């Protein structure tokens, strides 16, 4: 047999687009084309109308496409031809899309002047100018490249969210969950911060604050300029600052204990929202190999360590030394951080020792030793720099490497190559913290249905986080992985109804059954006794 067949580069040609889908695609692309014209500084007579038309064309194109693709079929999983389509199987269109997206991110992060950003005080040009009318309506200010990005991001989540809902319209969990991410993106990430900006005046200033964006994902939240602006904004600002801290230490752990990290990663988070909607066509591309899993664990936890050090250094850099002026001094702060890390570390080792894999232990000990050593080094040295590096260097490095390159350029730009959750899986420090909580202290797990698994591989293939779900399902073992974002697709695509996302007691959460239901009870007893 030819090599082609082995790789499913099938001879199939019935998966092309229908006529309606082609027209719908053309309409959407026309909308994008208007943006392209704007980038090249074509002068439009009425920017408000042109912008509306462009946004509408994209929305209509996507909705029409989705209607045509899904409403003509019966309700149910229809992944037909996913691996034959160029865009969703790392074909030419997939690579081109990846290139365009990556290019867009590079321009957005590093060359915003190409989009029309100008010096302070000057009027925008190009694409950014096109978005000025909308920005003025919402916040009263002219647009920035981030406003352009935010608008397009929200539009993508809404339009592709609609597509997602149609695709999974037989599945109520997916419909409600998608409604949730669409709402949080539109309201919390997009509209509310704009309205908050409207409140700002010369005497009152709030930072642009997506309330659901929690540290460490929101790694800049405790930088000096933000903290200053919040404190100077009186009670509201102080409230926001306290809310930011409470989110980390109280709200997040409680919700994760009750529902797993999915409450955030696949119901609220904006990164997750884009991955689940616009990224849905690419979820099957994530790498499921054991090697990828090993890389993932080291990389994501390294990012977490990095962000902890960076934030500590930055906060430390602007705190005072004099305890009579303010209770939180450099020294107190460092002691607090070190104590917290020690409590978490010791707690996990004392109570959850058995659940930690060997490499997890080594990794944790290694990082813990490094962090504490750095603290010690600081105390016993000249105290000029915390952690050997200047805080500003650390912050810039983090912002560049993680904030820009990883989360934007690679995280989203490479959707068509590495799947939709590259950032969430390998890079997001928030996902690492929530994952730690989920793995060790959560009621959440995915249960398997006795002996009904046929090892078909749909669950693993469509896991965007690259979890080899099948490996657990075919053993009848509950899945309690820290990376699981609870999107529920494994359960949806399972043709035998084997998987279910559940919140239940901590007891019996981990059940390493050696033998499945089906054989007589004695045999099961025998095996489980061992």
């Amino acid at each position, binding site marked *: 047999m030819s090599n082609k067949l082995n790789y499913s580069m099938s001879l199939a040609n019935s998966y092309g687009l229908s006529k309606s889908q082609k027209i719908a695609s053309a309409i959407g692309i026309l909308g994008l084309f208007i943006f392209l014209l704007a980038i090249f500084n074509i002068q439009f007579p009425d920017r408000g109308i042109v912008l509306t038309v462009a946004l509408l064309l994209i929305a209509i194109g996507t909705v029409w496409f989705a209607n045509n693709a899904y409403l003509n079929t019966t309700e149910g999983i229809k992944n037909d*031809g996913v691996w034959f389509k160029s865009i969703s199987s790392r074909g030419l269109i997939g690579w081109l899309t990846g290139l365009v997206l990556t290019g867009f991110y590079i321009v957005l992060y590093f060359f915003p002047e190409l989009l029309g950003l100008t010096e302070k005080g000057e009027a925008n040009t190009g694409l950014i100018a096109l978005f000025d009318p909308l920005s003025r309506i919402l916040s009263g200010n002219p647009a920035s490249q981030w406003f352009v990005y935010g608008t397009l991001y929200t539009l993508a989540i809404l339009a592709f969210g609609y597509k997602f809902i149609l695709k999974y319209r037989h599945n109520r969990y997916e419909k409600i969950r998608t409604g949730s991410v669409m709402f949080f993106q539109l309201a919390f990430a997009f509209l509310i911060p704009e309205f908050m900006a409207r409140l700002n005046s010369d005497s009152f200033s709030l930072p642009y604050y997506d309330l659901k964006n929690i540290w460490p994902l929101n790694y800049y939240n405790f930088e000096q300029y933000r903290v200053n602006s919040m404190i100077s904004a009186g009670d509201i600002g102080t409230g926001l600052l306290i809310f930011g801290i409470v989110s980390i230490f109280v709200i997040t752990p409680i919700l994760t204990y009750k529902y797993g990290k999915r409450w955030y990663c696949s119901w609220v988070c904006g990164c997750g929202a884009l991955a689940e909607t616009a990224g849905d066509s690419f979820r099957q591309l994530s790498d499921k190999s054991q090697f990828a899993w090993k890389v993932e664990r080291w990389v994501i936890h390294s990012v977490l360590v990095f962000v902890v050090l960076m934030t500590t250094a930055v906060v430390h850099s602007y705190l005072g030394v004099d305890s009579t002026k303010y209770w939180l001094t450099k020294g107190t702060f460092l002691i607090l951080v070190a104590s917290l890390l020690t409590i978490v570390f010791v707690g996990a080792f004392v109570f959850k020792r058995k659940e930690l894999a060997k490499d997890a232990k080594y990794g944790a000990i290694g990082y813990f030793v490094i962090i504490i050593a750095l603290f010690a080094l600081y105390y016993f040295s000249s105290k000029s720099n915390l952690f050997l590096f200047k805080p500003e260097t650390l912050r810039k490095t983090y912002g560049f490497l993680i904030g820009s390159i990883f989360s934007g350029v690679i995280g989203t730009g490479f959707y068509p190559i590495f799947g939709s959750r590259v950032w969430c899986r390998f890079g997001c420090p928030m996902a690492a913290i929530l994952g730690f909580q989920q793995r060790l202290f959560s009621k959440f797990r995915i249960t398997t249905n006795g002996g009904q698994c046929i090892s078909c591989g749909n669950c693993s293939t469509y896991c965007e986080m690259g979890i080899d779900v099948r490996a657990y399902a075919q053993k009848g073992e509950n899945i309690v992985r820290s990376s699981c974002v609870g999107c529920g697709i494994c359960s949806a695509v399972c043709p035998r109804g084997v998987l279910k996302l559940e919140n239940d007691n901590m007891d019996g959460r981990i059940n390493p059954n050696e033998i499945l239901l089906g054989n007589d009870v004695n045999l099961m007893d025998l095996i489980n006794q061992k």
Partner: protein
Amino acid sequence: MEHVVIIGNGISGVTLARHIRKLSDKKITIISAETDYFFSRTALMYVYMGHLKFEHTQPYENWFWEKNKINLKKGYVNTIDTDTKTLHFTKGDTITYDKLVIATGSKPNKFGWPGQDLKGVQGLYSKQNLDNLEVVAPNNQVCKRAVIVGGGLIGIELAEMLNSRNIPVTFLVRESSFWNGVLPEGESEMINRHIKNHHIDLRLSTNLKEIISDENGKVKSIIIEETGEELPCDFVGLTAGVSPNISFLEDSKIKTNKGVLVNRYLETNVKDVYAIGDCAEQKEAIGNRRPVEAVWYTGRMMGEVLAQTMCGNSMQYNPGHWFNSAKFLDIEYQTYGWVFGSKGRPDYETHFHWKHNDDTKCITIAYHKDTKEFLGINTFGIRMRHETFDNWLTEKRDVDYVINHLAEANFDPEFYKHFEKDIKLAYNNQLQTA
């Protein structure tokens, strides 16, 4: 070191090998002529449909076998000499064993239809079948119409596959209703309607008379027995069941009937030779089970049990309560315990049937008409928890208990609508009117 040789790298053989490795350090060799590595046969359909690549159907990464010291040998066993404990391959090489396990699975049934060996006529069982299908039915230009003969689980999967590539399908089913040899009436009829909703040309009570060849020895059309109608087509799928794949044992001393005859320890008549999975035939049937069960789950269980026996913990194959599952296009099906269709139903078995208005969900609960003991359940479009029903069957609960506690067994995803109240209401109404 004892050498265990397993012929067949399907779920039975591979499960056996894995469990022997867990329990011992015996030398293990798995032989297959089909593929280099184990794959999930039941997932072949998803490769054709473009949901998966073939490599996704392989549950273990390729390094797994070497790491676990399980030797894989590609080759087709021609004959077995049990006196010298030697296997002879078609290529002339040989291999010796200390213990031999036959796990060669099934092959599609052919009933002697004229033209059944033409090009474009095949079953759907092996990787090679799938590769062939890709050649003869890659799209609806090459294959303008497909005919499927036989109305079982593989038949409907094949129909779904072809349908996914917009190839028009005519589905010939001998029975008066789809799979009604197994499914009770209400369910079978619901599936009939579901098949037709997918624009599949379902012909019930229809038999194949012959397959007509064109000048190149390729299928051109088929003729229907009842009407004499000639139906032009480019592909004929034969899915009228499977039978044990054991023709290579003909000249051996191993006793066979339909399959390789085994006792409850899965031993054949020859010492140190065992058989498991689809190709094994129980000398005496176990409970309501058929002597040959060509089911994924039973193959896996046999592998688990035989590993115990071969590693010094002699153990009978003693399957627990019957269960199975399937998917009919968009409708998931699960069954626990025994629910019989009209054929072969014991006199004491009576049914409660509930169907949702949307015509995609129903359940049938079988119970003893005198003692009311719960015997089994079929569910369509509602997922049920295996463990719960396993317990209820062991505890011999009555039907009222099952109806009243149905919510405990629900395995649907969160936020799904529940129908336990409707079901209970229907059950109570039925009792009042009965």
